[in-house]
């Protein structure tokens, strides 16, 4: 790096230009003094409570002040005919003319109109009023009562066009997806920007209590300033800043409970026995009547002797013993059955977890220094036994005015994240016999298997008990900046953004766990450190001529990523493994490995905004990006955009009483996606070890080498071109406001793992091919339904619909007729990957399930090799065999539409809110309906219906059903409506608090995931997955109850 600093500067023109500009203006003193005066004032809400931190800005300038804890401000050098713009989060902004006034009183009203809000647009802010792209903002402060535990919680349901999945773990979180899946193989996570700089870290390291606002840039035009990384949308997080001369100290402390939100019961002891009976009857095609039934309840026409003779059992043997043996029970199961003693594994897997989240912050502004500091500790227990998450987070935001033309600042974030938890293997509860036991007879040692059947079921507590794990991440993310105003409307900013991550994963599997006992313990130590940095240099200008307003931004950026990973594993610890991973050298089979990575990138960006009479708006930008992953041939790419807006409500012809505001927006732009492996374009060699034996009998290790990946030096950026049409409106005196957006996004040069014929020895090659299109609409309506003196009711309704379609794949290839003659060309589907031109990426293409073969269809079923009770699959081409020719489009995995309905009520000092959201039209695999997963003759089961001759249902198969020759899945709709949050809070009246020198004190209570309605799904909660979209395993859902106190001094 050092070398780079002092490299001889054979600079391109643009760089020199920038440098010259900056230097010139830095060295010019501010020559322009003005003949003005000082204005002071008080700003309160309608209840006359002083508002702290209200922004008061002189219109047409960047100068302003903010109010102290008494709601007071003082502003010097205000022009005689100046206008002050007063704005505050959640309130309607006002413009106050101060002709001849030196003291003003402003009462601010809560607003639903979001048009005046200041939104982040990337490398700057704009008033929503002036924005030409599709930008949505969430104010985290308004969600305080709901106590969001992560950024995902802040965003979930609150932004049309953004889907946020849910996680069941104590850590929380979820995946983010903006406007549908646009890429097939590259990443689809939006770019995260924190306080103006790109954030490469883990979202859980950002304390949601520190967040002021989150802005989501959805269209190409608004995201284009982030060019190459913006194709999946951009999420801009703004943290809190200090203001007010007296330090404000805030405590936000809450405790909560995590509980299992939904029951999915297993069979208890007696239920298990009758289920096993039914299972064995179904498995054994030639079962004799009542062969597997309780011999004490045989019908009159079957004697016990006859029953015993079925399998030549000892005629003098104990009938119950014989029966339990037929049911394949192990000794311990039989003993416990006879004693009537069973184990409820289900209840042992789940707990009421305690959650703690405490944040203290102090903020303020003293003369030329503003500060915000916070410390947070979160300690969550999950509802699954053993699941935990804890983190300690600190944030320091400082800004000091170093000179009239220069402020320096620092935004620093540190997190110490502990993910050492090893939860119980709750999935094993299905395998565990209810007549098994957790402990050996000594009452303290875990059994290897609940019923001594280790081949099939292991004790769910093994991992939890015998794994000793330390998994910690320490992250330090900071942004050091320098900014200031220059004469002639210029301003500048320079950011240096380092990010450090230190990750440890140490794991010891104790030799007490029978699975590794003969290996005498297995341990791993992995250390990984990451250092990446970015530098942004920004030069901005704004000015106006008459009614023409303009601003421009120029950016020069560079970045570098470096990571070092070291791992060692060992086993066979001698004399014992009591030291676990702490003495990794004590083993006999060391394996060491390392992986280091490096990438570099740079960017140039220019943006220009223009508006005329605040009525006609234009935004245009261009960005040129470089990235080393494409460095072989295409290191750089250019991403342009343009957006226009028309505030038609300002036109004479549109002036109507009911129309408060109306703006039409249109934008176009191209964004890039580079979210692939750093070395994906390069061919690499796989290494490993093999062994030879020398003639003297000695084992020697030899290295093997083979080509693992085909090189593609032409690899380049994926490009998403989008069009967006939008309408922002506010009608009936701001009673109703919102926006409507329609978009079309075409992603070309998809970074796609193109399947290669396996005869090449390669599975696929990463290449740029094809086109995927997403189009959709997003509607947002905010209403002020009722406004009385003591009561207000506001609602927000968001609706999103996205349609995804593969337009092209690999380009035209020849078509042949039956004789092998070329008869034309066409682009072919990629059937092997289930990608079809004209269909959704996530379309389901499979054999169609028609129902269950019934008793009277036995002969027909036999033609397909199955029998009554098995699934009946449509043989589309009637050839008696199942192949691709029988596969059909059966639906979609992604929601066809989503809506959110949020209501906020205020009654005196009480606030109450609830949110409903819904995903509609998506389907998911439900192979549980086959009743043949796992070993049905050796385990327990969830209580699903099953087909029997006496219960001839048509949607669930018989126990241990046969799939025959059909390779199929059963699908069910996972449409749902969820009551996701209900929150109530009480703020103590200011009159009570002022005496105690308390600014505000609020108590709140909320419930998360209170209820769900999923009419067609009955296996846990279809929305909760461990790690979507890759892992689609449905997992138990959590419910959280939280009580909190928010105190501001």
């Amino acid at each position, binding site marked *: 790096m050092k070398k*780079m600093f002092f490299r001889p500067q054979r600079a391109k023109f643009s*760089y020199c230009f*920038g*440098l010259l500009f900056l*230097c010139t203006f830095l*060295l010019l003193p501010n020559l322009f003094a003005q003949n003005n005066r000082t204005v002071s004032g008080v700003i309160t809400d309608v209840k006359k409570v002083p508002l702290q931190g209200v922004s008061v800005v002189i219109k047409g300038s960047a100068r302003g002040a903010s109010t102290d804890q008494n709601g007071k401000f003082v502003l010097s050098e205000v022009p005689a005919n100046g206008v002050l713009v007063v704005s505050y989060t959640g309130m309607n902004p006002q413009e106050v003319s101060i002709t001849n006034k030196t003291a003003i009183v402003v009462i601010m009203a809560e607003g639903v109109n979001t048009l005046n809000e200041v939104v982040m647009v990337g490398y700057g802010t704009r008033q929503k009023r002036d924005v030409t792209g599709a930008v949505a903002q969430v104010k985290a402060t308004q969600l305080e009562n709901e106590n969001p535990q992560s950024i995902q919680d802040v965003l979930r349901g609150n932004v049309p066009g953004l889907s946020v999945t849910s996680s069941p773990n104590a850590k929380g979180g979820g995946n983010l997806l903006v406007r549908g899946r646009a890429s097939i193989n590259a990443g689809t996570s939006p770019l995260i920007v924190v306080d103006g700089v790109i954030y490469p870290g883990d979202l859980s390291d950002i304390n949601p209590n520190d967040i002021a606002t989150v802005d989501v840039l959805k269209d190409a035009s608004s995201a284009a300033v982030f060019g190459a990384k913006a194709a999946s949308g951009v999420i801009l997080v703004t943290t809190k800043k200090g203001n007010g001369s007296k330090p404000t100290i805030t405590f936000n402390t809450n405790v909560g409970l995590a509980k299992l939100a939904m029951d999915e019961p297993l069979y208890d002891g007696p239920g298990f026995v009758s289920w096993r009976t039914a299972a064995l009857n179904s*498995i054994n095609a*030639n079962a004799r009547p009542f062969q597997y039934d309780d011999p004490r309840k045989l019908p009159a026409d079957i004697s016990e002797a006859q029953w015993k*003779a079925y399998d*030549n*059992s000892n005629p003098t*043997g*104990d009938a119950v*013993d014989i029966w339990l043996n037929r049911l394949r029970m192990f*000794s311990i199961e039989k003993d416990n059955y006879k004693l009537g003693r069973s184990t409820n594994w289900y209840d042992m897997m789940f707990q009421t977890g305690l959650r703690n989240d405490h944040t203290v912050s102090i903020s303020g502004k003293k003369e030329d220094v503003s500060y915000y500091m916070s410390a947070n500790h979160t300690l969550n227990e999950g509802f699954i036994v053993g699941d935990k998450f804890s983190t300690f987070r600190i944030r320091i935001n400082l800004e000091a005015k*170093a000179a009239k033309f220069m402020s320096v600042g620092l935004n620093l974030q540190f997190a110490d994240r502990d993910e050492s938890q090893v939860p119980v293997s709750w999935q094993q509860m299905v395998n565990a016999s209810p007549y098994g036991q957790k402990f050996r007879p000594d009452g303290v040692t875990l059994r290897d298997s609940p019923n001594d059947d*280790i081949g099939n079921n292991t004790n769910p507590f093994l991992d939890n008990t015998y794994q000793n794990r330390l998994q910690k991440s320490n992250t330090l993310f900071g942004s050091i900046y*320098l900014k200031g105003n220059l004469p002639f409307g210029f301003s*500048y900013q320079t950011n240096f953004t380092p990010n450090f991550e230190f990750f440890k994963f140490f794991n010891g599997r104790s030799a007490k766990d029978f699975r590794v*006992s*003969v290996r005498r313990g297995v341990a791993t130590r992995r250390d990984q450190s990451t250092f990446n940095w970015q*530098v942004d*240099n920004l030069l901005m200008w704004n000015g106006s001529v008459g009614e023409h307003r303009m601003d421009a931004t120029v950016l020069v950026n*560079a970045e570098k990523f470096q990571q070092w990973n070291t791992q060692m594993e060992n086993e066979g610890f001698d004399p014992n493994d009591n030291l676990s991973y702490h003495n990794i050298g004590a083993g006999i089979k060391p394996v060491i490995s390392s992986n280091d990575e490096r990438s*570099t990138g*740079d960017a140039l960006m220019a943006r220009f905004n223009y508006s005329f009479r605040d009525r006609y708006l234009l935004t245009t930008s261009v960005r040129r990006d470089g*990235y*080393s992953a494409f*460095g072989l041939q295409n290191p750089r790419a250019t991403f342009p955009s343009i957006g226009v807006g028309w505030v038609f409500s300002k036109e004479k012809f549109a002036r109507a009483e009911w129309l408060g505001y109306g703006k039409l927006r249109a934008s176009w732009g191209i964004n890039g996606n580079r979210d692939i492996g750093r070395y994906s*374009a*390069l*061919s690499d*060699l796989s290494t490993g070890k*093999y*062994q*030879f034996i020398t*003639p*003297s*009998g000695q084992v*020697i290790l*030899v290295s*093997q*080498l*083979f080509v693992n990946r085909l090189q593609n030096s032409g690899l380049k950026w994926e490009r998403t071109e989008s069009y967006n049409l939008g309408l922002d409106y506010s009608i009936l005196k701001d009673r109703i406001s919102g926006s409507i957006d329609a978009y079309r996004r075409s992603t070309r040069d998809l970074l796609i793992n*193109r*399947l290669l014929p*396996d*005869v*090449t020895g390669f599975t696929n090659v990463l290449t740029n091919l094809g086109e995927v299109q997403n189009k959709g609409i997003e509607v947002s309506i905010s209403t002020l339904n009722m406004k009385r003196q003591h009561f207000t009711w506001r609602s927000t309704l968001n609706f999103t619909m996205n349609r995804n379609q593969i337009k092209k794949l690999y380009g035209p290839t020849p078509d042949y007729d039956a004789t*092998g003659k070329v008869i034309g060309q066409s682009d072919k589907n990629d059937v092997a990957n289930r990608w079809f031109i004209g269909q959704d990426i996530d379309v389901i293409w499979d054999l169609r399930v028609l129902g269950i073969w019934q008793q009277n269809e036995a002969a027909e079923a036999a033609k397909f*090799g199955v*029998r009554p009770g098995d699934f009946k699959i449509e043989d589309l081409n009637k050839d008696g*065999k199942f*192949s*691709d*020719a029988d596969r059909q489009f059966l639906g979609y995995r992604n929601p066809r539409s989503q809506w959110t309905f949020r209501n906020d009520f205020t009654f005196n000092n009480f606030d109450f809110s609830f949110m409903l959201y819904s995903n509609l039209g998506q389907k998911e695999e439900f192979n549980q309906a086959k009743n043949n997963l796992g070993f049905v003759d050796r385990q327990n089961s969830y209580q699903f219906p099953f087909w029997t001759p006496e219960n001839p249902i048509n949607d669930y198969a018989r126990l*241990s*059903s*046969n*799939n025959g020759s059909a390779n199929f899945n059963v699908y069910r709709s996972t449409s749902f409506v969820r009551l996701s949050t209900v929150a109530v809070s009480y703020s103590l009246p200011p009159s009570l608090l002022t005496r105690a020198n308390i600014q505000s004190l609020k108590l709140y209570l909320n419930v998360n995931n209170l209820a769900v309605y999923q009419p067609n799904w009955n296996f846990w909660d279809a929305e909760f997955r461990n790690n979507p979209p890759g892992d689609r395993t449905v997992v138990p859902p959590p419910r959280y109850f939280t009580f909190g106190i928010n105190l501001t001094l």
Partner: protein
Amino acid sequence: MEKIKKYIAGTALITLAIGMGIGCKKAYLEPQPLSFYEPSATYTTVAAMRAALAACARNLRFEYYGGNPPILTEMLFTEIAVEGTTDKAGPAQDLNLLITPDLVEFNNDDRNKIYVYWDEGYKGIKYANTVISRIDNVTYASPAERNAILGAAYFHRALRYYKLTHQFGDVPAIMKEITAPSLEFYSTKREVILNKIKLDLDSALLWTSDAVNRGEVTKGAVAHLLTKVNLALGNFDAAITAANSVINGGTYSLMKSTFGSAAPPTTVMPGTRTPVPLPRNVIWDLHRPENKSVAANREGLLMIISRFGDGQFNTGMTIMRQAVPFWGSNISSPTGKKGTNDNINPEFIQSNLYGRGIGRTRPSDYAQYDIWNDPNDLRHIPGNWMKMEDILYNDMGLKTSGDPWYLKNLQLRNVNGGLICTDTIRSWFGWPHYKLFVPDFENSPMQGGHTDWYLFRLAETYLLRAEAYFWKGDVASAAADINEIRIRANCAPISPSAVNIGTILDERARELFFEETRKTELTRMSYLFAKTGKAAENGKVYTLARFSDENYLYDRVMDKNNFYKKGVVTNYGAKYTISPYHVLWPIPTRSINGNSNGRINQNKGYTGFENNVPPLEAIP
């Protein structure tokens, strides 16, 4: 003054920051791999070429190691075994139902491994082609060094094609390293590929040596494979010549007396829990893990090496899990109680002696009874061969209830002759303990740990030469070769008049269980019957034109494998079926679909055959 300082500081800072931006020239964006090797810079030394060959050698392991090893799929298409997993749908039992191009896409332990043979076969070809295409990018100490490396690569490629052409028939012939995406492959005629690999092996035979480490390609292995390829081509004299070079070369010989220092076979007397040693014998010693690759052992031509300490198949071979009966379940004592326990908690941990089997590889009656017609056969004597009756009732429930059957020998039937094992397919059969017993120090209960494995063994060379003599009509020489094997195993010799393909197959079944790729060999023989028009021992004459409709393999399986012959139905209700077209496996749908600009032909009898185009008549 103070102000000026600040100005200077500010200017310096900004200049610095912008300077960093200027530093970003094109070189700045060059990708720099740090932790992996890059091909063109790496395949430039002899060491790298040897490492590429090590990849070929390591790839051989996939066939015998891991869960449901592919070798079982080779076995279950023949007369010696079937898939024995009887408690669910999916395992390859009803072959007519389950062997479809659509269903062979899985590398799924509950199904079959046809796709694994295809996929790993072409991976092996890729590894070998890397060496062959880059052979002259390297400077060698001598031409001999170059040729030895090239010869080994030719061997590895030929071995894969030999199997692929007998498993799948006509397949794409890729003889060069692939360095750019290509989706235009066509099937090449089987004979064309065989002729090409014969030429390659002829060269390799001149270039390779036997003075190499175990695990590396030997001259003996090249000659052995060349014998097979020559047989497949109908060049019987060339096959005999190739076999002679191994048998008479002086390096290899059959092991005829005990050797090594492995522990002897054992037995457990009823009522006791301690194994008692039995006398050592050559068959036992020949298959002990500690003896397979020792210098004293002169029988192994090509070894697969797997010892504790290497990265792949970390927990061993698991052969005992795959091929030992599921003796811990379905077996009741005559008193009607659970009889056996294959876990590690009973007092008598019987799984330490035999492993915890799951009965996946179920031998046919042919393999476990019919071929054992010589009472002195060492391969079937107690201690070497296990019968179910040698196992003892060991479930602790028997002991705690004072049951008299505790630690008594298993019984298949009760006093009245009624069956008391509820699943004799999966849980009741005999097995060659001398081959399957591989002590396991990494799994508990034992599944079959680390051991080397014979890929080619001299005993098979004798049987291949016997076959060549038979095809030529020289039954006396054929009998002599077969008798080399029989006499070593303490059997009575057979007379020349008894020699036919059937008796050669019988001897192969006795000698090469879990070693030979039996379906490949049967298909090769079926081709030869069809090609030569020679009548088989069943009296039938076959033709190439109707190969997928009538062939020797199918008739032999239906004659000898009681499961397919009788259409046995498992407890689950699956029926064992097979058809003549199974002589060639289906090409996986995935492989045909992935080749969108060409056409890989499907075999007759499977969906998609109708889309075939004529196969290539030359190597592309």
